């Protein structure tokens, strides 16, 4: 029992940030691909 | 036996990759008849032969061989089909006698004597196939068909790469199969060679059936005209 880990917010922000950005990029790429397919049909 | 067509194609289509190479073929072939497949390069002859050999399934439409669809169990059909395709189906490292032994054991039959003599390869029986010329490989592949003696024989450009002696060997083989009542399908762009060996002809162009009728009525100009 060494007590609570102090700080570490930078890791929290990095995890949320990377996840959010990656999901955002993926959703955007899906959107673009879907529009491209829609147009060609 | 003769009432049933050995081949029946109904709306047969095949796609290779993204292209349709055979489109809506309808034809029948009776047992014992021999068929000449004519057409230029890329007309779909080889693909049709692969379909008839059951190696490739149809993408669309129906194909029946020996009265049963190729979509159900293909094993009994395969035991009755022999294919000499644009590849010779040989192992470069094995010798002709190795090959013959393998084929006869796979088919569960005795190896008859003198088979290599008939294709004039006896003196090279123990050399690996990688040392052979293309024509010699083709002769070895012909020996396979002679050994298995299947009911439906599919030949893809059988005269290619063969010398004059090889060509007459092949012609004799086809004649003897016909005499035995076997069904032969022969694809070639050299129609003058194929015509005397066949009863009927089927002209393909761009994967479509352009003309069908007695082999004797097919002419080079029809083949040339079909492509354009």
């Amino acid at each position, binding site marked *: *029992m060494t*007590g*609570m*880990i*102090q*700080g*570490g*917010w930078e*890791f*929290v922000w*990095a*995890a*949320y940030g*990377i*996840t959010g950005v*990656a*999901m955002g990029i*993926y*959703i955007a790429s*899906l959107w673009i*691909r*879907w529009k491209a*397919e*829609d147009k*060609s*049909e | 036996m003769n009432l049933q067509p050995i081949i029946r194609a109904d709306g047969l*289509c095949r*796609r*290779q*990759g*993204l292209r*349709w190479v055979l*489109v*809506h073929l309808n034809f029948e072939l009776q047992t014992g008849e021999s068929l000449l497949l004519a057409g230029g390069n890329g007309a779909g002859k080889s693909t049709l032969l692969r379909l008839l050999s059951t190696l490739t399934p149809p*993408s*669309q439409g129906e194909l029946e061989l020996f009265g049963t669809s190729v979509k159900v169990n293909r094993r009994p059909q395969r035991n009755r089909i022999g294919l000499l395709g644009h590849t010779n189906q040989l192992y470069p490292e094995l010798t002709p006698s190795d090959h013959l032994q393998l084929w006869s054991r796979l088919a569960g039959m005795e190896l008859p004597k003198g088979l290599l003599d008939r294709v004039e390869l006896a003196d090279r029986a123990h050399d690996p196939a990688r040392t052979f010329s293309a024509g010699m490989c083709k002769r070895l592949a012909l020996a396979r068909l002679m050994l298995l003696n299947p009911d439906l024989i599919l030949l893809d450009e059988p005269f290619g790469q063969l010398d004059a002696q090889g060509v007459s060997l092949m012609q004799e083989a086809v004649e003897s199969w016909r005499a035995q009542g076997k069904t032969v399908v022969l694809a070639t762009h050299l129609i003058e060679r194929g015509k005397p060996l066949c009863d009927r002809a089927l002209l393909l162009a761009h994967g*479509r059936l*352009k003309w069908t009728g007695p082999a004797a009525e097919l002419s080079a100009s029809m083949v040339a005209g079909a492509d354009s």
Partner: protein
Amino acid sequence: MTRQRVAAAFALVGLGLLSWGSYLGLWVAPPDRYMGDVQRIMYVHVPTAWLALVVFMLAFVYALLFLIRRTWRWDALHEATLEIGVLYTALLCIQGALWGKPTWGVYWAWDPRLTTVAVMLLSFAGILSLRHFLDDPLRRASWSATATILASANVPVVYYSVRWWNSLHQLQSTPKTVNSAMVEPLRINAFGLLALTIALIMIRSWIAEARRRRDLAPPLPEIEA
């Protein structure tokens, strides 16, 4: 049009839940007794892990269905779940490493779960790239389905072997504290990601299906006699 509305609704609900859950997790929930604020990574990490698992299980089911039924619909769904699963496992590895550094002192401790996820990522990414190297749509579908079944069968074996392999320095990574203020954001985020994942799978499978329709247009109708 209606199915697009359904997907959009799922996506919006998912994104809404995710922002609400993340807000709760980042600002409202108390820090963990031992791990402190670092523990807040859990609110995104655990839902991602759950959904990654669900998505790969779906991939396995779709692969099996394709091999049995040979219907293109299953291939489109298979492709969608493969791609989304690879994305989730990649995120999972990054999140796990970011959680590992402050708690274990190293980014990568060969924790059995994290290592299994890395192996899954490798296997399924390999299958995804296999799909790019096969031109024939039918071959692409049935070969990648075969590979997916093999890779899925391997996942439990990998897990057990890695756990055993690393048994000498087993590390505990799950917080045992169950506090309603901590469970709530977790649950909200899990449902949010579930909704978003459903929308993503739907849209990705439509893209796959549209591409297949374009690639596999039926033979031209004109039939010459």
